[in-house]
């Protein structure tokens, strides 16, 4: 029994400590940014903040919440995430159902499958895509954030694999009862696929919330940016034109603490759904990728 030997016990303790240290390193930058966001200007600008706030202050959050541009981008992000996620799920369910059929039942299935998969391995590139968006008059429209992402082939494949595990007998019984395929999808497949749909929905939500490049490329008006794009321009590209300070405020506020607060608010929704996501995604990933 190796578990009880002394060398293994020592190894186990050292190993566990090592892994815990590595795991902590994965979240230390987040903890640091949280600490900075709750610190006072002098401490943050003087680089005195480590992993705990120095001279606790919520002024950075107050200023952020007061910024109408920030609030509006938050609203755009919520809107695109809700509408986009719902759309992705509807399109994915409708497409995954026929694709999950046997070739004998749905000839033409493999042609469709290749049409879908080909888009995963080849694309026209940045400029041709931009021209198509332009000729569809989607530039500066909210819908440019939703429509191009509606078909997520990766999620469709995951869902297709899940649908294949649904017992055929259920479908056959419903067909004999005279149900149509749309009815079967809605009343037989969807109820048993709720955990899978929840996983896919969470993935789609995180994807939408994190998307920033489409906003940067296709929206010229900064007021229309979703939060991720706003953060990209304000924090990464350091474009301060949408922030306004009075002289007094400037003495009280530090760009560092405000940036930290905005970053943390931007990460917060992901942190909130993360525990739910984690509960599902290990199963979901394995269900889609590790098939014997």
């Amino acid at each position, binding site marked *: 029994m190796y578990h009880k030997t002394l060398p293994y016990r020592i190894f186990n303790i050292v190993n566990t400590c090592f892994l815990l240290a590595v795991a902590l390193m994965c979240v230390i*930058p987040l903890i640091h940014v949280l600490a900075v966001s709750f610190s006072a200007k002098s401490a943050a600008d003087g680089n005195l903040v480590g992993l705990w706030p120095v001279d606790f202050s919520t002024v950075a959050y107050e200023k952020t919440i007061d910024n109408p541009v920030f609030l509006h981008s938050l609203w755009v992000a919520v809107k695109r995430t809700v509408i986009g996620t719902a759309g992705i799920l509807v399109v994915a369910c409708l*497409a995954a159902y026929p694709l999950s059929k046997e070739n004998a039942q749905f000839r033409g299935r493999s042609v469709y499958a290749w049409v879908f998969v080909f888009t995963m391995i080849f694309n026209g590139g940045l400029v041709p895509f931009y021209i198509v968006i332009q000729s569809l008059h989607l530039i500066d429209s909210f819908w440019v954030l939703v429509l191009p992402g509606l078909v997520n082939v990766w999620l469709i494949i995951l869902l297709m694999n899940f649908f294949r595990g649904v017992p055929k007998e259920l479908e056959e019984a419903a067909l004999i009862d005279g149900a149509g395929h749309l009815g079967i999808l809605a009343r037989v497949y969807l109820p048993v696929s709720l955990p899978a749909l929840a996983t896919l929905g969470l993935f789609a939500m995180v994807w939408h919330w994190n998307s920033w490049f489409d906003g940067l490329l296709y929206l010229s008006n900064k007021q229309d940016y979703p939060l991720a794009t706003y953060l990209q321009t304000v*924090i990464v590209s350091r474009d301060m034109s949408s922030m306004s300070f009075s002289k007094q405020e400037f003495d009280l506020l530090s760009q560092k603490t405000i940036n930290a607060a905005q970053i943390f608010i931007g990460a917060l929704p992901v942190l909130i759904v993360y525990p739910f996501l984690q509960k599902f995604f290990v199963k979901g990933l394995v269900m889609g990728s590790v098939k014997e």
Partner: protein
Amino acid sequence: MRYLRRTWPFHLMILPALALLIVFNYIPMGGIVMAFQDYKPWLHISGSEWIGLDNFRALFEREDSLQVIWNTFLISVFKIVFNLLTPFAFAILLNEVRARFLGRTIQTLVYLPHFLSWVILGGILVEFLSSDGGFVNRVLHELFGIKPIFFLGDGNWFRFTVVVSEVWKEFGYGTIVFLAALANINPSLYEAAEMDGASRWRQTLHITIPSLVPMAIVVGTLSLGNILNAGFDQIFNLYNSLVMDKGDIIDTFVYRTAINDGQFGFATAVGLFKSVISMVLIVISYRLAYKLANYRVF
């Protein structure tokens, strides 16, 4: 006719996705003809001048584009290697943690960065790694007396930082498939080894590692398709003019030549060069993964 009567609901259900794919994926593919044009937006594709392979010739003659291809290759090779080895080792070590609660906690923490975007992480890292009193430089100075390191301001350090931060973000997520493979190992193998008096180290060497090799082959070969994909989001949110010579990659180069310089035809040619090579590599790697480890996506 009979076929259509039986399957029309299927075609109808696929239609929305198919229509969207045609509009947003297949029609743009037609636009790659721009790679053979001196494209001018006001002349459109129909009116722009055809210049044959001049854009591709420029791609292989311009010093900046050759440098960019080399940067991309170098950065992505290091990313691929360490994104394979780190999860492999981490999964084996994590598998030895017997306390379930601790194991779960470690998993929760290491998966997290995968879900945060490079905008968030870029914003954090620029401050965190700053040479002017950033957290990491402060810690290094206090512990080892090291002078401030220009993680994002020096070309070589930038490459290093890009690879390390990518592995930092993704290794946890990468362990999932290896942990799944570990859970599938037949326990009787270990029991038999135990009977023969094999130490845990020998069991790891002769049972655990060989059982993970097929999965490592799959992950490794499938990542070959990324060899020209050094990570647009990450580089775009971390780079600056100081590290342009060593940190610029194909995707950021395409973006800048198109959006900032207006060289649309050339940018499309560079993008096409990347897409075609990536596609060939992906097809080869999936065939390899199927041959070597019997892996299929669908």
